[in-house]
């Protein structure tokens, strides 16, 4: 029989041992035979010694081939550990789940809304071109100016412009309002959104007055409205009463969700140069930088200023990455803030998990010490900790990802819906990557402290001198973690506090108008069928229909309803002090409204009168001094001395422009942005400007939502081909305008409360631990007759010391951090004293409360049992 070398070696060693025994016995005088028998007897069963020796080393090869075995053993042990202490395990896992799920949800939201690259190829090369007013504000581009920019530029591969408009689509005899976009022929190829079916617009289709009537559908509209059949190509659809041939289907839904129909822009070179309604974009030519393009646009703007001084004097151009427009500065800031907070939050979770693991580790120190003494290799102990950590990460991370999906659904449902890309927030690959990194990172970071403690000190000291010294160093680490937790909690809670204060300020803002009981909707009255006078006639008839509905108190129309995306601007000046240059005019926000608009919107009249039937005129008909109504903000700006503005003249738009007579002054309405003082406002009669899609406001004494069916009936009674567009209570618009502040506040408050809970748990754990450790001492003091109050205070004081240290560090750090929040706070200083007093105070109270319980328990200690247990 062939033996392996190890077995032979063991046999040889045993044989030699027996030999030596035998020799010794014979030297003692025994006969050779007796000596052999006695040696064999003394040695005992050679077979069992051989087996035991072989078994001393698991498998002969050693090294890596033993790993799977060891891992299996570690996993079994780790599972036993987790199951054996269900409360601690549940807490640890819950903390990981909350931390990781929060990270995943926030990351996927921020990713979808802010971080995800724009849905175009090479988005960084796509620039937005704005016109800039003499005052340096950004404006859109007017049609003739765009034509000139596009024709004269030398730094872009191509330029394209787009104008948003709701259009009426007639389908099966029913008129529906859908989002549309007028775009240049270059739009699709420039943005890399070329039609997947059919073709893009031809250059000749984009020429003003082109005879061809074509349209392109978005993929979503094509699937939803036309069943995704290619037969749609070449068919005609009725858009705003015109028959348009569908020539292509374009993948635009990610970039512009909701936009369904594209029509050629065909810009009118003779349109007003100061009617800025187009978004202009360009793709940088190879090798051209943004600065070069900026200089190019500066040059063209300067030329246009000279050529068209009436409209373009002093106007410049600004080139900016298109990202700034599509994402927005505030969103980016909010996103950064949320990511920062969730990062801090994850650190908190790390500290909590670390603390819980440490608590467990302390309990296990002794056992670990025994294991090393028994010869468990150091790497096995590390392996054990790693396995346990991996198990925690796996269970916690898995649960977190499973939870993140539903949580994201809640966020999508509750979050602001004005940011369409929020709907894109999903748990996808990159989000899973973040989740994995967060879970693994948490456990690694959290496992670091206990591992170091166990390996560096614990193992070697625990047997030498019991568990005392090792738990002392463990306690120091745990104290440090609690301090860190409090510091982090303070920063999260302070941010949450500031945002909450800011939001409450926003909620209590005096809007200057009364949104309750008001429904708004829009009607589309296309230029092809209506001029502004015909529109006013339509609206008068509609007003009569609506006022017949019981409960309706007032009906008014405006070019832009409160908080709509239209914020038209212009310039005015006092005619008696008219400056020579437009840049010295007052920039204003303006609306063209019917006389009843003020009553419908609930804007109080302060002086003079509102528009009446006497002001009604046809567009183009010259009235000597057309009437205007101004708000108190503009009144204060134009007449700072408090003179009565009624009856005075203001000049519209430009030096030498039309002089208008102020007939009334109304209250300032905060109807564009809630978080900013309203811009000075001027109202002109509804017939002043051509607006295809006026909004109607209906004030009712009853529930505005219940009015909607009656409104739809009234509109179709006046003209069945006119759709009622998006009827909704204005209070919804008011709410939506603060959706992001509300959302970020809610997120921070939720984070803050969880952080507070974690911090409370942390200090409770540390206090309970130290009370347990000091049981003998406390027992002794009780036995010696110490005052209970004094003892309780002794315990609470120790906890409070940690909390106060953490709070101080956190407050100091917050002063640095909250400064970054200043731009998203409304009417609250980033170092708001109230917030900076209340939050630390609340935290200190929480610290006292959460150490009170263990302190009380300490006093319940039986003096005798405490002393005996030592």
């Amino acid at each position: 029989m062939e033996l392996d070398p190890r077995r032979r070696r063991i046999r040889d060693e045993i044989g030699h041992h027996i030999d030596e025994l035998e020799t010794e016995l014979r030297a003692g005088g025994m006969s050779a035979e007796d000596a052999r028998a006695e040696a064999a007897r003394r040695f005992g069963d050679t077979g069992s010694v051989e087996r035991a020796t072989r078994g001393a080393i698991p498998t002969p090869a050693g090294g890596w081939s033993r790993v799977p075995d060891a891992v299996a053993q570690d996993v079994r042990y780790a599972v036993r550990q987790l199951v054996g202490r269900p409360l601690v395990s549940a807490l640890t896992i819950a903390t990981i789940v909350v931390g990781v799920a929060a990270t995943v949800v926030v990351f996927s939201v921020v990713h979808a809304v802010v971080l995800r690259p724009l849905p175009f190829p090479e988005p960084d090369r796509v620039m937005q071109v704005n016109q800039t007013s003499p005052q340096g504000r950004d404006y859109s581009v007017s049609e003739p100016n765009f034509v000139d920019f596009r024709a004269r530029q030398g730094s872009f591969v191509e330029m394209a412009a787009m104008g948003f408009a709701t259009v009426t689509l007639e389908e099966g005899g029913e008129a529906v309002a859908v989002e549309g976009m007028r775009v240049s022929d270059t739009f699709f190829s420039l943005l890399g959104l070329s039609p997947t079916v059919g073709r893009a617009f031809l250059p000749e289709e984009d020429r003003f007055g082109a005879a061809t009537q074509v349209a392109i559908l978005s993929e979503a509209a094509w699937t939803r409205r036309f069943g995704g059949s290619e037969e749609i190509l070449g068919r005609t659809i009725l858009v705003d009463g015109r028959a348009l041939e569908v020539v292509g289907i374009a993948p635009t839904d990610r970039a512009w969700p909701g936009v369904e129909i594209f029509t050629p822009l065909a810009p009118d070179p003779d349109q007003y140069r100061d009617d800025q309604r187009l978004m202009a974009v360009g793709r940088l030519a190879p090798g051209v930088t943004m600065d070069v393009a900026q200089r190019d646009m500066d040059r063209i703007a300067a030329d246009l200023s000279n050529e068209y001084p009436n409209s373009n004097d002093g106007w410049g151009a600004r080139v900016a990455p298109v990202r700034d427009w599509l994402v927005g500065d505030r969103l980016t800031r909010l996103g950064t803030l949320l990511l920062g907070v969730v990062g801090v939050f994850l650190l908190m979770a790390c500290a909590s998990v670390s603390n819980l693991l440490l608590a467990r580790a302390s309990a296990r120190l002794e056992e670990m010490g025994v294991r090393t003494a028994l010869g468990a290799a150091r790497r096995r102990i590390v392996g054990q900790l790693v396995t346990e950590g991996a198990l925690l990460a796996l269970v916690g991370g898995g649960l977190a990802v499973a939870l993140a999906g539903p949580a994201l659904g809640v966020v999508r449902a509750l979050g602001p819906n004005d940011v369409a890309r929020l709907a894109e927030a999903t748990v996808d690959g990159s989000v899973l990557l973040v989740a994995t990194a967060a879970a693994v990172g948490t456990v690694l970071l959290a496992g670091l402290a206990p591992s170091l403690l166990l390996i560096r000190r614990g193992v070697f000291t625990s047997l030498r001198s019991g568990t005392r010294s090792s738990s002392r160093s463990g306690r120091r680490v745990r104290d440090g973690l609690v301090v860190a937790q409090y510091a982090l909690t303070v920063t999260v809670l302070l941010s949450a506090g500031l945002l909450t204060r800011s939001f409450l300020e926003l909620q209590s803002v005096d809007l200057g108008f009364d949104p309750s009981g008001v429904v708004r909707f829009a009607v589309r009255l296309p230029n092809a069928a209506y001029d502004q006078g015909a529109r006013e006639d339509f609206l008068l008839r509609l007003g009569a229909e609506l006022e017949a509905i019981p409960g309706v108190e007032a009906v008014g129309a405006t070019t832009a309803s409160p908080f709509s995306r239209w914020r038209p601007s212009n310039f005015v000046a006092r005619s008696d002090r008219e400056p020579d240059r437009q840049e010295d005019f007052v920039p204003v926000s303006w609306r063209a409204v019917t006389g009843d608009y003020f009553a419908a919107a609930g804007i109080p009249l302060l002086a003079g009168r509102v528009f009446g039937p006497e002001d009604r005129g046809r567009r183009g008909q010259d009235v000597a001094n057309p009437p205007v109504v101004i708000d108190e903000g503009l009144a204060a700006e134009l007449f700072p001395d408090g003179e009565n503005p009624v009856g005075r003249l203001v000049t519209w738009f430009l030096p030498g422009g039309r002089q208008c007579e102020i007939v009334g002054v109304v209250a300032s309405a905060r109807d564009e942005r809630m978080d900013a003082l309203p811009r000075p406002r001027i109202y002109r009669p509804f017939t002043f400007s051509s607006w295809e899609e006026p909004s109607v406001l209906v004030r009712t004494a009853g529930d505005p939502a219940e009015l909607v069916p009656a409104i739809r009936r009234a509109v179709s009674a006046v003209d069945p081909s006119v759709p009622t567009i998006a009827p909704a209570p204005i209070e919804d618009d008011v709410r939506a305008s603060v959706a992001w502040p509300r959302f970020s506040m809610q997120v921070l408050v939720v984070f803050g409360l969880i952080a507070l809970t974690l911090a409370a748990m942390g200090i409770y754990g540390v206090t309970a631990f130290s009370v347990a450790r000091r049981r003998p001492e406390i027992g002794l003091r009780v036995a010696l007759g110490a005052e209970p109050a004094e003892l309780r205070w002794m315990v609470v004081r120790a906890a409070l010391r940690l909390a106060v240290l953490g709070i101080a560090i956190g407050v100091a750090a917050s002063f640095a951090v909250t400064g970054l929040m200043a731009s998203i706070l409304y009417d609250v200083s980033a170092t708001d004293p109230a917030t900076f007093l209340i939050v630390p105070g609340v935290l200190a109270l929480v610290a006292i409360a959460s150490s009170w319980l263990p302190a009380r328990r300490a006093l319940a200690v039986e003096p005798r049992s405490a002393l005996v247990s030592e």
Partner: protein
Amino acid sequence: MDDRVDLVPGTLDMLVMKAVSAEALHGFGIARWIESVTGDRLSVEEGALYPALHRMEDRGWLTSDWQRTDRGRRARYYRLTTEGARELEARRERWEGSAWAVRRIMDGEV
């Protein structure tokens, strides 16, 4: 005259390492050395000795090779490695701590 003592559990490795710390010994020699140093009051079971030797060699505390004995026989000789010396020191320290504690407690007044 039975003044034999039992091996304190967990100390065998330490004793074996001490035995081979000065010079290389084979298994039989180790057992004899321990017996002679303790005046035959402590003896080592072969069934525990050889597994311990192999295990400690696997850990890298001991190393071994075949040598000829004085009488010319082939035997496996064990020596302490540097790592083994460190381990021996650590165990001695730990042992002394425990022994001190036990003695301190047992000598104390009740």
